[in-house]
């Protein structure tokens, strides 16, 4: 009590006589001073809570940024027509408005600026970025419009936003459509007719695609198989042997049949295409320049200013569906990301399949079998340090060791007929998964070791006293009990592996993979194929594409998808873990 009263008194005096010099306080307030701050309260509580709050704010801010930009990206925006003072018409989607410092282009300006204060500089002006589209006509997708140069802004109802397979979107009006000779144009063209024409065109496009990518690809595949079989026979028996000659004859017959089929299919594709080319649409930009376009090149079109909220939501949903189910186009900045989603999932699953047994077995040896001593401690420190190696180094190692050493060996042994084209001797799904497994194995080992250490010794003793061998004890008692902890490690490893990009760039991820790693050709899972990955897709679209402004929505949407994917995979793993946990912690004495 004494220190408190002293303190109160000293504070009271200070209030009553605020001019008391600090010296007098130091004499009267001796008791509270002797008692340290940390003994009287929780002075660090602000620090603890503050750092947590900062962390949460950063995560929330990041998530909000991704969610907002990602979710809003596909919602149809209105189209505006801006008349500038010089009479030019600009039509497009307004993207954003910002203030900027107009740069005057007088020559001596740069020298003057050094000496003058910033207040003498030009007044900030407003400008708006419009997505004007029509890249084939204007050679640019986006245009800045100065607020001061705008005469008037309008939202005409007949303006269409047309998404095309090539050249990006078109912003303009529909003049007419030509359905294989029957021309419908002007006011007689109803929106419904237009939409049904676009739908039919999409069906034709799918038909051509199924011939080209399905049937012709299958013929090509069989042809390649036949050629490889022949080459294999040549390598096995020698070019003079009777077996080779038999194979050669078989190959000649087979290739003749296939070539016949190929020609038929090609003719069919050609016919479909020339038929398709008769269906065209004539578009005109805001200043009246016309553009004739194949109808099947139109992915989606809508009169942006006429849409009801419901129609906008339908377009929004169809864009998401396209994203999740289609292949990319326009150098990845448009279209879907299905191959990337697929590649990421398959790679992460293979990685988990590789890392789980490897890490668990290593941790089991370290914790259950190895004699605890200096050697084991050194190994443990080494494993922890492995987690600190830059991931790109793993990539280099994966490329050198897996692809160029092991992969080249596999090629020499199993696929000599394909050389010099590498099969496993280059980056691919398998090597990517193994490289990431290597990258994440320290996480699994450390987590598993901790989970094993947390299994009570009494359980082990109980089992051993029943006459169980060490392995039986591990199998029946220790591993099941450690499983939730092992799952936690696996979750961490999967999250880390799914989001990793740098090493993958070296060992198998590509900008655009022609084929998925799983398809209907034997052996169905093609571990040697290169694949697409969401993380690399973000990097590629955001930083390597022709027009970063056009790619921006795609970057956010892809990021959103990647984060969602990781969250879903983690949620699944956490669900499994919690079910295991419930099994092992019921009651508990």
């Amino acid at each position, binding site marked *: 009590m004494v220190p408190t009263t002293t303190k109160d008194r000293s504070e009271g005096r200070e209030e009553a006589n605020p001019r008391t010099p600090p010296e007098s306080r130091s004499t009267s307030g001796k008791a509270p001073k002797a008692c340290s701050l940390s003994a009287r309260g929780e002075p660090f509580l602000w620090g603890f809570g503050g750092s947590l709050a900062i962390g949460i704010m950063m995560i929330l801010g990041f998530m909000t940024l991704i969610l907002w930009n990602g979710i809003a990206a596909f919602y149809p925006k209105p189209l505006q027509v801006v008349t500038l003072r010089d009479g030019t018409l600009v039509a497009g989607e307004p993207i954003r408005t910002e203030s900027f410092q107009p740069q005057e282009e007088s020559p001596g300006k740069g020298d003057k600026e050094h000496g003058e204060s910033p207040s003498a500089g030009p007044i900030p002006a407003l400008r708006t970025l419009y997505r004007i589209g029509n890249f084939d006509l204007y050679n640019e997708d986006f245009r800045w419009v100065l607020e001061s140069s705008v005469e008037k802004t309008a939202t005409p109802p007949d303006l269409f936003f047309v998404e095309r397979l090539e050249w990006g979107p078109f912003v303009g009006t529909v003049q007419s459509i030509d359905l294989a000779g029957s021309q419908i144009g002007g006011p007689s063209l109803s929106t419904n007719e237009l939409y049904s024409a676009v739908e039919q065109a999409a069906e034709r496009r799918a038909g051509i695609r199924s011939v080209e990518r399905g049937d012709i690809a299958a013929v090509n595949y069989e042809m390649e198989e036949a050629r490889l079989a022949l080459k294999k026979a040549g390598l096995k028996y020698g070019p003079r042997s009777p077996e080779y000659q038999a194979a050669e004859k078989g190959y000649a017959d087979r290739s003749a049949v296939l070539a016949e089929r190929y020609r038929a299919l090609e003719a069919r594709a050609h016919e479909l295409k020339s038929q398709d080319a008769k269906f065209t649409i004539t578009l005109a930009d805001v200043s009246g320049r016309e553009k004739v376009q194949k109808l099947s090149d139109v992915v989606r079109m809508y009169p942006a200013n006429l849409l009801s909220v419901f129609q906008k939501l339908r377009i929004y949903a169809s864009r998401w569906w396209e994203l999740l189910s289609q292949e990319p186009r326009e150098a990845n900045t448009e279209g879907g990301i299905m191959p990337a989603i697929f590649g990421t999932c398959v790679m992460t699953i293979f990685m988990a399949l590789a890392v789980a047994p490897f890490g668990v077995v290593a941790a089991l040896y370290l914790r259950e079998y190895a004699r605890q001593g200096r050697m084991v401690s050194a190994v443990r420190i080494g494993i922890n340090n492995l987690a600190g190696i830059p991931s790109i180094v793993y990539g280099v190692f994966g490329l050198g060791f897996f692809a160029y050493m092991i992969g080249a060996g596999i090629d020499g042994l199993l696929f000599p007929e394909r050389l010099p084209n590498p099969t496993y001797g280059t980056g691919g799904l398998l090597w990517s998964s193994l490289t990431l497994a290597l990258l994440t194995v320290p996480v699994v080992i450390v987590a598993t070791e901790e989970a094993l250490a947390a299994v009570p010794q009494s359980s082990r*003793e*109980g*089992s051993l006293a029943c*006459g169980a061998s060490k392995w039986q004890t591990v199998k029946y008692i220790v591993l099941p*009990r450690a499983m939730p902890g092992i799952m936690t490690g696996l979750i961490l490893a999967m999250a880390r592996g799914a989001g990793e990009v740098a090493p993958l760039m070296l060992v198998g991820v590509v900008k655009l993979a022609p084929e998925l790693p799983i398809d209907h050709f034997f052996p169905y899972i093609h571990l040697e194929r290169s694949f697409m990955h969401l993380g690399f897709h973000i990097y590629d679209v955001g930083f390597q594409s022709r027009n970063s402004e056009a790619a921006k929505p795609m970057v956010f949407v892809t990021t959103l998808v990647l984060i969602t994917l990781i969250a879903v995979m983690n949620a699944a793993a956490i669900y499994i873990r919690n079910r295991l946990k419930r099994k092992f912690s019921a009651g508990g*004495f």
Partner: protein
Amino acid sequence: MPETGPPSVRSEGTIYHVKRGREGTVMEIEDFCLWYELAQALFNVSMGVEKGLVTALIGPSGCGKSTLLRSINRMNDLIDGVKVSGQMLVEGFDIYGPGVDVIALRKTMGMVFQKPNPFPMSITDNVTYPLKVDGITDKRVLAQTAETALKAAALWDEVKDRLHENALGLSGGQQQRLCIARAVAGDPDVLLMDEPCSALDPVATGKIEDLIDELRGKYTILIVTHNMQQAARVSDNTAFMYLGRLIEYGLTSTIFTNPRVEKTMEYVTGRFG
């Protein structure tokens, strides 16, 4: 009628006045010493364990009674740096001899620990664990064994309706009786109990003691206990250990009423320990 031999002195000055069992001794411990790294925990312990009787090991904490018990089924092997000397013969067979199959040895002995340690599986799976590790998968045999063992452990009536529930849902006393059931399920000759009641309340303790009484005769039981009333109640012979030495080993009633050694008297009357 079992008879008490005349007091005799063997190595290390231990006093013996052991009650003989009808079937003779099952275990002969001769000059047994044990070291943890450099610290010696047992000094020249020599004793015989009578078949079919209950033998209690008492003594103050750290006197080596648990170490001795765990040496019998070689659980001390799990600890790095344990060295032993002397002999431990079970049915005339040196269990520390060369080429001994430790796992086979442990199958002949059941062990119950200080804290109940049921496995996180169903009650049946717990009891039949010793059979499972022997590779027995016949469901009928397993169910039969589980019933027999649970009846032997006086737990059958309490759990017969929930044999497939997780054993961790049982109370502490039930868990310990489940551990006893598990220990007897493997059909051992010897039951080793390491303070089986120290984590239990008096009611559960009473049930375990009744159970030990019932198991007397069927198994040779060695029980380590801190509770001297318990030792007096359940055991035929009692060994008093102090600082790693066996001080006095003999008929329980004699140990608790008229011990031959001053130290034993001091301990059983509560003057130290």
